[in-house]
Structures are given as C-alpha cells and as structure tokens.
C-alpha cells in the first residue's frame, strides 16, 4: 500500500505553498520530507490529512481517494499525523492523552460512558498497558501523570509521537518530531521509528530540519523547495546532490549544519 500524491497544488492568496507535487510514499517505508523554512512541508501535511484540502490534484492512500475527506476520516483510514507546534490536550495528563487517542468510537457515546460494555473495558485495560510500554520506550515513563501543559516542549514533542502510535496507525506523518527533543531522546525516537518500520511494517513520512537524524533512518528523501519537489532519492544520493546543498547552504545555512 502506498500514499500517492498526484500534482497536488495549494495556494494562499498569491502564494503557491505547494506547487504541483507528485510523489509516491510506500506505507511500510520511512520517507523523509525536507526543505527550508516556508517550503510548504506543513501545508502538504495539512492537504494530505484533510485539514486544508488541496486546490487541485489528487491524493490517495491504498485504493482510497482521500483528498476532500474530513480529517477524522483520513485518520480512521490509518494516516495519523502529529503537529509541528506540540500543544496537545493541554489539561489532560500524558496517560489520559494516550488513552484518549486509543479510545474506540463505540465507547465515545453517552451510552458507552455508562461503562457497561466488557469489550470497552478490556480495550481500556489493554490501552493502559500499551501506553506504559510506549512511554517507557521513549524514556518518559515518569511523566505519565503529568499534565500536558506542564511538559517541556521536547517532552510534548515526544508525546505527539507516542499519542499517534496509540491511534492504530497504518502510516505516521510526523511534523518535526525531533525539534526541541533532548539529544538522548532523539536516539530513542529514531530507533523506535526504524524498529516500527522494520518489525511491524509501520512506515512514516517525516518532516524535520535535523538532517543527521533523518538521513540515518530514512529509506527515501524528498526535497521540497518553494512548494515544488526539487529532488527525490535515497539519503546518500540526496546528500550528494548539489542542488539540494545549494538550497540548504545557500539560502538557509543554519539549517544545513545537520547534513
């Protein structure tokens, strides 16, 4: 199964934020999406996940057209995204946030609230165990009962990632998951992303400015520049591409240091 973009375009007033992008991202691989600030990466995520539908072009996941679907429907199909600015469920604890992500629809009704369904209770218990596992792997086990708005920015970023794992994803869309995360935790993060892909076939599409992090885990890299796809290929090839280096070093040197 794959995520397929076909000449996707999105404009804001006069600004062409995404300029006829076509790409194929396998659901069971790790794909990186890089590009300088304002290249249109987040806009592309918003288009894929239904938050800000594209002006034209088509997006499909597996054999399902997903452009024009509402965000919750895209998520139901298994495309789970995270957000660049990790605000999260401010007043919920880490544990509550993770459990909320895992709660099935049938428990989310006033009648379901009565807690009569055995299935819902079993699901809740299993989710609790999974929440503890995931937070342990990300080194944030001791934060389970801390409110989201009391977490550091880095921990909130990790929570974004953990939360998306709880929602039964088929493919993850991670918007700068490593930004503000402590270096030790970036290691855990990249291991986990890689392992999920290799062992369980759960691939991801990752935006980040930390190129060393991405180059280690990505199978394929797409470079976006001013809305258009500049280059695509395996990490080594991209690292050697003079156009990519020019975009990064010439216009935004600071961002290129990671490479």
């Amino acid at each position, binding site marked *: 199964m794959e995520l397929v973009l076909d000449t996707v375009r999105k404009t804001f007033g006069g600004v062409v934020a995404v300029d006829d992008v076509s790409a194929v991202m396998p659901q069971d691989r790790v794909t990186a999406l890089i590009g300088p600030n304002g290249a249109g990466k987040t806009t592309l995520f918003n288009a894929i*996940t239904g*938050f800000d539908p594209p002006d034209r072009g088509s997006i499909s996941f597996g054999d399902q057209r997903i452009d024009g679907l*509402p*965000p*919750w*429907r895209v*998520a*139901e199909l298994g495309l*789970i*995204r*995270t*957000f660049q600015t990790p*605000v*999260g*469920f*401010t*007043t*919920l*604890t880490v*544990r*509550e*946030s993770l*459990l*909320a*992500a895992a*709660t099935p*629809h049938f*428990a*989310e*009704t*006033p009648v*379901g*609230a*009565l*807690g009569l369904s055995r299935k*819902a209770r079993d699901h*809740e218990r299993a989710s609790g165990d999974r929440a503890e596992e995931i937070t342990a792997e990300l080194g944030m086990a*001791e*934060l*389970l*009962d*801390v*409110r*989201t708005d*009391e977490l550091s920015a880095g921990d909130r970023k990790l929570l974004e990632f953990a*939360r*998306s794992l709880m*929602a039964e994803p088929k493919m993850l869309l991670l918007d700068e998951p490593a930004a503000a995360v402590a270096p030790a935790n970036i290691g855990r993060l990249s291991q986990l992303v890689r392992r999920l892909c290799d062992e369980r076939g759960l691939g991801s599409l990752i935006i980040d400015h930390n190129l060393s992090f991405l180059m280690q885990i990505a199978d394929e890299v797409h470079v976006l520049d001013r809305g258009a796809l500049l280059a695509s290929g395996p990490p080594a090839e991209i690292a050697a591409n003079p156009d990519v280096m020019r975009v990064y070093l010439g216009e935004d040197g600071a961002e290129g240091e990671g490479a």
Partner: protein
Amino acid sequence: MTNPIFWVGVLTLAAIYASLAMALNVESGWGGMWDLGIAGLLAAGSYCYVILTADPDLGMRFAPGLSMWVAWPLSALFTGLVAFAIGAPALRLRREYFLITTLAFAEIIRQLVVIQADFTRGTLGIPNINRPFDSFVTGRDYNYVLLGIAVVAAAVMYLVTRQVGISPFGRTLRAARDNEAVALALGKRVNRMRIKTFILAGVLIGATAPVYLFYIRAISPQLFAPGITFTVWTALVIGGLGSIRGGLAGAFVLIVFTEAVGLIEVDPSHINILVAIEPFLVGLLLVLVLRFRPDGLFSERSAFGAGNRAAGRSAGDSRPAGAAQGSGG
C-alpha cells in the same frame, strides 16, 4: 434559624439548581460548549410536561391528560429532541457565536410559548401543577417530600454526570475541548460527539424540569427569561467549571447564601431592595469568584487528579462517592 420549612424550601431549590448546574457542566465544562440556552431547554421540558399532564378543563388546545410518570420521561426525551434541533446547526459555530445562538434560541422558545397561547396559555400561565404523592402527604409536610424528590434527583444527576466525567467518553470530550485539531487528527468525530453531548444535556435538563415545576407549582413564560441561565452558570462557575462536584457545591453555596440574605428584615417601604437582593448577590458572587478564585471551589484539576512532577502520584480519580447525598440532605 427562623422556620425549618423555609430552609427545607431553600435546600430543595438548591438541589434543583445543583442538578441543572451539573447537567450544564457536562456540555460546557467537559464538552467546551458555552451554552447560554439553559432557560430554553428548561422551558421546553417544563411546557412539555405541563401540556402532557394538564387538566383538560383548562381549555388548552392539546391536553392528553397523561399520568405524570409517563409525562416525565417524555419531557426528558422531548427536551433532548429540542437540544438536537438547536445543537445541529449551532454547533457549526464556535465560541461567542455559539453562545449567542444558544441564547437566541432560548429566547425564541420563550417567545413561542407566549405566542402559542392556545397550547400554553401564554402569559396567563398554568397554576396548580400536580405533584407526585400529594394525595398521601398534605400541607406543610409535603415540603419534606419535595425535598426528598429534589435530593434524589440531584444524587442521580451527580452519579450520572460523574460517570460521564470519568468515562473514556468524558475523557475524549475534554480532549476535543482542549484541542480540536489534535482530536480530529486522531480520528475523533468531534462534531457528532458534541451533538450527542448536547442532546444528553438536554435530556438531563428536561428530566429536571418537572422537579422544578413541583417546586414552583405554577408555570409562566417569565420563569424562563435569561436570568435563570445566568444563575445556573454562576452556580457552576462558583463551584468550579469542569470539576465533578463543582455544580453541586456551587449551587448550594449560591442558593443558600442568596436566600439567607433575603431573610434580613426589611421595612416594607423598601420592598424594591428586597426584590433586588437576589440578582445583586448572584452578580456579586460571580464577579468575586472570577476575580479571586477563577477555578471555583473545586478545580477541574482536582477532579481529574493530575499530579505534578514533584508529587508524581498516580492519576487515580478522586472518589467522592456519597458526597452528593451528604451535602444534599
């Protein structure tokens, strides 16, 4: 003090407001829907109940004369239906637009009651509403029966809303309130869930309406002016929006306080002041609580046991079971 029957009445009223405030908390505290249309829902439930049970001799166009035990659940369901009719369009709007729309709908309902006098007797109102068990207990003693009914209603309301609050459903509601975009990104059908919550609040308010009528005894459209909405909100804000016990505690504080001050002897020539005391105190309490204790008496944080880094305790939910009966009786 004074006369025990007076205090029985005060506690009855407090229990009724507590029920309304707890119902409001589900949609506003946890659901994040700032509903200023409580009066409208209460009017819908009240008039539904009154019309279904009215004495055919009153000359209303539709008076099936149903038993109150049939009319009671029907009123709750009807109010849920009205909530759906309001919520489905209004929930497409956010924040203050939602608030204005619900306020406007409530006022429309009240005006419709005035205008549809064939069915509702308009501003004439309907006196002498039948009350449960009043053939067995009469006179002053009936006030104790009424207190019992109101306290049981408040206790049931407490248990129901608490269950909603601590359930996965309540958790997702709070999540979507905190961050709609993230909830959507996780596949939550936020709007559908909110409509269901709005209907639930309608059913709960509609179920409380007959108790309110037993207390008031006579119904007329003025009862459902926006004032009652503001009083319920004040109770909830005082108690703590989003906490499990907030509505309960806030209503008792507010009602006991305003009624007690009403006891102060006032010269009959200053009758105006007597009339003004209640709105003044409600307003003053609201202003003071918002200024000095914006989270209310009980905060949402205390209700859902979020520890902090230092305390690091586990998120066991607070278990205040029995508190309802305790303060209600």
